[in-house]
C-alpha cells in the first residue's frame, strides 16, 4: 500500500532579548551554571513575574510577518507539571488567548512549486532550565540559567507531507526569524528547536492516523533523519499489523533512532488556568502600525525584487534571499560591480561552495563583500579570466591579500596585447606543423588543442577569446 505522511511542527524560537521574559537576569548563553538565575528564575517564595516589553514587540513583529492576526488581548496561563528544570512547578505560557493567531508562510518545494503552510498560532512562554545527566554521584544536576528565556512557540498546521517539506518549512522559518532579528537562530545552542507531530495514512484517506511527537531535534539534518525514520517506523508497524500509539518520542542522533520518552509516559493533565500574577496584554492598532513600519524587507518581498530589478532566476533569487546576511552580501557586491548576474553567479557558485565545504555561515566568510566585489570587478574589466579568478579567490580566502594585490604580486594580469598573443600562436603553430595541417584539413577538434597550448604558453594569462580569434585568423591565412 502507498502511505502518505502528515507532519506538523512546533518550533521553539528563543527570542533575542537581553533579559529574561519575566525577570531582569541575562539571557546570554554559556555562563557558569546558575549564575544567571535570579530570585525570580529560581522561583523563591514570594517573587513575581513582570513581562519584558521586547518579548511582546518581537512576537508582534513575527505575527505581522506571517500575516497573522496579532491579538488585541492576550493572556498568560499557567501550565502545571512537575519537573526539576521547571522551578515554579508550572510554566508561564499562553493557552486560550495567544498573542499571534493564524497565519502562513510559503515554502519552495524541490519541484520548484510554492506551497503555503499554515501557522495555527504562536504564543509567548518561558523556557525551562537544563538537566545535566553527567554523573554527580548518581544524581542529576539542574542549571537554571536558561529558565525564563523568552520563547515564541510557533505551531504549524499539519500541512507537510514529507521530511523534505518539513525541513523546507523549518528553514524558511529560521530565515524569517533572523530577517526579523528576533532570534539568533543558533541551533547548536538551542535557540531554534523543533518538535514534530508525525502520522501516516494510506494515500487518499482523509482521516489522520495516530500521531507520535518527536522531541529534541536541533539541526535541519536531524529533523530530516528523525522524521524519515519515524515515518518508516510507523509504516512498518502498520504493515506488520500493529498500531501506532500516541506518545512522545525522543530522537537519539547518535543511534539515529527515536524511542519513547520515559518522563512523558504518564498522560499529562496540565491544568491550565490564567496566571493571576500577570494581567492581560493589550496591543492596539497604533502599536501595530509602528511595528509594521519598522519591519524589514522580508525574504519573499526581497526575492521578488531580485527577480524584477536584477533579472535573476527564481532559483538564484531564492538562494540569495535564504538569509538576510547573504542577501546583504549580495547587494553590497552588486552595488560595487554593477552586475547583478555576475555577482549572483559567483556568490551562489564559488563562495557558497567554499562556505559549504567549511560549514560556515555567510557572516563568517573570510572574504568580505567589498573584497569579493573587487575580485569580480577584475573579471568584468578583463583584467583576469574566470579561471584565474578562482585561484585569486583561493588566495584571498587564505588571507594573502586583496584581489588586486594578489593579481599584481603574482603577475596574473591577463595578456590582451594581440601582438604578444599572436607571437605565441605562431610559436605553437610552428612547433606542431602536422596537427596544424590536420586542422586546416577540417579536423575541428584540434582547435581546442591549439587554444589550450597557447593558454599554457601564456600561463593562463592570455585572454581566451582573443586566442580563439587569432587562431581562426591564422587558419584563414
Amino acid at each position, binding site marked *: 500500500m502507498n502511505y502518505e505522511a502528515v507532519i506538523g511542527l512546533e518550533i521553539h524560537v528563543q527570542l533575542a532579548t537581553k533579559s529574561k521574559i519575566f525577570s531582569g537576569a541575562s539571557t546570554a548563553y554559556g555562563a557558569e551554571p546558575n*549564575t544567571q*538565575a535570579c530570585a525570580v528564575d529560581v522561583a523563591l517564595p514570594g517573587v513575581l513575574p*513582570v513581562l519584558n516589553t521586547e518579548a511582546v514587540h518581537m512576537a508582534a513583529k513575527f505575527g505581522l510577518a506571517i500575516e497573522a492576526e496579532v491579538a488585541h488581548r492576550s493572556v498568560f496561563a499557567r501550565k502545571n507539571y512537575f519537573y526539576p528544570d521547571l522551578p515554579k512547578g508550572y510554566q508561564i505560557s499562553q493557552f486560550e488567548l495567544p498573542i499571534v493567531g493564524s497565519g502562513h508562510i510559503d515554502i519552495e518545494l524541490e519541484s520548484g512549486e510554492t506551497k503555503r503552510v499554515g501557522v495555527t498560532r504562536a504564543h509567548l512562554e518561558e523556557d525551562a532550565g537544563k538537566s545535566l545527566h553527567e554523573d554527580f554521584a548518581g544524581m542529576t544536576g539542574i542549571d537554571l540559567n536558561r529558565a525564563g528565556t523568552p520563547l515564541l512557540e510557533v505551531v504549524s498546521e499539519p500541512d507537510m507531507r514529507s521530511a523534505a517539506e518539513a525541513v523546507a518549512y523549518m528553514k524558511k522559518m529560521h530565515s524569517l526569524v533572523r530577517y526579523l532579528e528576533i532570534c539568533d537562530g543558533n541551533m547548536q545552542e538551542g535557540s531554534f528547536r523543533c518538535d514534530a507531530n508525525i502520522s501516516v495514512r494510506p494515500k487518499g484517506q482523509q482521516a489522520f492516523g495516530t500521531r507520535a511527537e518527536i522531541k529534541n531535534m536541533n539541526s535541519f539534518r536531524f529533523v530530516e533523519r528523525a522524521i524519515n525514520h519515524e515515518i518508516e517506523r510507523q509504516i512498518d508497524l502498520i504493515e506488520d499489523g500493529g498500531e501506532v500509539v500516541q506518545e512522545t518520542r525522543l530522537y537519539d542522533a547518535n543511534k539515529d533512532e527515536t524511542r519513547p520518552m520515559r518522563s512523558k509516559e504518564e498522560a499529562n*493533565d496540565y491544568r491550565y488556568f490564567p496566571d493571576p500574577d500577570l494581567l492581560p496584554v493589550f496591543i492596539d492598532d497604533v502599536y501595530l502600525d509602528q511595528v509594521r513600519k519598522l519591519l524589514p524587507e522580508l525574504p519573499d518581498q526581497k526575492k521578488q525584487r531580485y527577480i524584477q530589478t536584477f533579472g535573476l532566476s527564481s532559483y538564484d533569487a531564492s538562494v540569495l534571499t535564504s538569509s538576510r546576511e547573504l542577501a546583504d552580501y549580495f547587494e553590497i557586491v552588486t552595488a560595487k560591480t554593477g552586475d547583478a548576474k555576475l555577482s549572483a553567479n559567483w556568490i551562489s557558485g564559488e563562495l557558497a561552495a567554499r562556505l559549504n565545504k567549511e560549514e560556515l555561515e555567510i557572516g563568517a566568510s573570510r572574504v568580505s563583500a567589498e573584497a569579493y566585489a573587487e575580485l569580480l570587478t577584475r573579471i568584468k574589466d578583463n583584467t583576469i579570466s574566470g579561471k584565474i579568478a578562482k585561484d585569486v579567490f583561493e588566495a584571498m580566502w587564505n588571507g594573502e591579500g586583496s584581489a588586486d594585490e594578489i593579481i599584481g604580486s603574482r603577475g596574473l594580469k591577463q595578456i590582451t596585447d594581440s601582438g604578444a598573443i599572436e607571437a605565441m600562436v605562431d610559436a605553437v603553430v610552428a612547433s606542431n606543423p602536422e596537427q596544424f595541417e590536420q586542422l586546416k584539413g577540417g579536423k575541428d577538434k584540434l582547435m581546442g588543442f591549439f587554444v589550450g597550448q597557447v593558454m599554457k604558453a601564456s600561463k593562463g594569462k592570455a585572454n581566451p577569446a582573443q586566442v580563439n580569434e587569432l587562431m581562426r585568423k591564422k587558419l584563414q591565412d
Partner: protein
Amino acid sequence: MSLDANDIKAIAKLARLKIDEADVPGYATNLSNILDLVEHMNSVDTEGVVPMSHPLDVAQRLREDIVTETNQRDELQKNAPAVQDGLYLVPRVIE
C-alpha cells in the same frame, strides 16, 4: 460530589503529595464535603457572564528589556538542600 479513595490517590499523585494510606478515607470525606459546599455555585445561572480573573480591570505593565540582576548564586544556594559545582542536585532523571 463524592470522591473515593482512588480519586484521592489520583489527585494526590497529580499534586505530588504522599498521603498515608490510613489518611486517605479522611481526605476523601473532607474533600467530598468541600465539593458539596462548592456545588452551591450551581444555584445561579451564569450563562454569558464574563469570567473574572482579576479584581481590577487593568492591562499588563511592561518592563524594559534591561539586565538588572547580577550573579547571586552563592546567596541563593545557601538554602538549597543539595548542590554541587553550582548545580542543584536531584535524584537521577531519566528522559
